[in-house]
């Protein structure tokens, strides 16, 4: 069957690809575009390791068809750092050791950035609920939550 030609924007770059209607966005990101930062944990929307932004909305790329990217704005973990300059959340995750094996980390970072864009002053409860769709089997979540809270505080301070 003929492949579909998709024109989209990924991390600010105009991007084109060919895909089957059955392929997920995650498949295309990883296998065709070489953007392997988004991970496949469960493939069913439970773990959040494949989190991306689609038109400024946090979603699981495993539950999106690649053909749906037509005309949309896609942002992945690869767009988070500017060259060697890490995003404050990335720096804080390193500083607080908010990761061990690292498989969940891209998803947590994308989801945390989405939270702070919407709510610059979240309570711990709000952080925990927002990140409930991201599973981590290493850290016990505490370091992740503290890192997000700390970055939120620093970003508020910078914005003053």
């Amino acid at each position, binding site marked *: 069957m003929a492949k579909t030609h998709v024109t989209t924007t990924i991390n600010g770059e105009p991007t084109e690809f060919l895909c089957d209607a059955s392929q997920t966005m995650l498949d295309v990101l990883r296998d065709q575009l070489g953007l392997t930062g988004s991970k496949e944990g469960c493939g*069913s929307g439970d773990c959040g390791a494949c989190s991306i932004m689609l038109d400024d909305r946090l979603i699981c790329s495993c*539950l999106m068809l690649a053909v749906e990217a*037509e005309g949309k704005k896609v942002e992945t973990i690869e767009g988070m750092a500017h060259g060697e300059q890490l995003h404050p959340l990335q720096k804080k995750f390193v500083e607080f050791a908010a990761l061990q094996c690292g498989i969940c980390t891209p998803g947590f970072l994308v989801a945390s950035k989405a939270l702070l864009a919407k709510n610059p002053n979240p309570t711990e409860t709000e952080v925990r609920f927002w990140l409930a769709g991201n599973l981590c089997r290493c850290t016990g979540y505490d370091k992740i939550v503290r890192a997000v809270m700390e970055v939120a505080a620093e970003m508020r301070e910078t914005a003053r």
Partner: protein
Amino acid sequence: MNDIRYSAPHTIDEAVGALLAAKGTGRILAGGTDLLVQMKAGMALPGAIIDVKNIVEMSAIEDKGGGAFRVGAAVSGARIGEHAALKKAWPGVVEAINLIGSKQIQGRASPGGNLCNASPAADSVPALIAAGAIVAVHGPNGRREVAVEKIQIGPGKTSLQPGEIVVSFSLPARPAGSSDAYLRLIPRTEMDIAVVGCGVSLTMKDGVCTAARVGLGAVAPTVMLVEAAGAALVGSKLDAEALEKAAAACRAVCKPINDKRGTIVYRTKIAGVLLKRVAAIAAERAGGR
């Protein structure tokens, strides 16, 4: 998952045409949070996927004034949760929709999908039933309107005819002193399937309940309208006796399954407990207690 024909039409008639042309193998794609999971599990093998998010009517929230709204069936939970006027007018409907899955799922999942997936435990449906939502259904013979409680007919089964698509939900205007609420019981604090879900919409006037509707989920093959529970509340001050009568009406209609999430006895008992709590929240919001 090969050889799927994907289309993203801009009109509802084109979508109906594509669905009919697929001869029973077509699936509607809104958020895809059920469909893609089913495809991966081999439970759904669609020959055609019809993405309805380009259809304006299905992707819009329309404020019709006086608390009346028309919500497109494909609007995401996240957008619904951000709509301040809708949230103010129908807090129970919005909180029910926003309980579906994580933030990532909310970015895509829609009330139309939640209804048409036809899970007995669908969180949005008890609240939509309590609200008296009317569903606009478009098919080969044009448009029809149907009460939301008539769509589900069994687990995974709907009353939709070949080529029919749920387009939108209409929430009616309500008198002052009205509000609604939804609660579900789950074994965790977040992201799980309801053991029981209960929605109540009511109107309070001078401390007396003048109208009430109750929707009950996860205790029967479909989400149900419990008319007797609503009737038990009307005319009362939501005193203990009226609440117990309504709770008994909820327990009476329960035909739940035994599973790892809850036994028949437990689900039945919880149905009554939730009814009382939800009615109290709705009344508090209505300012009538």
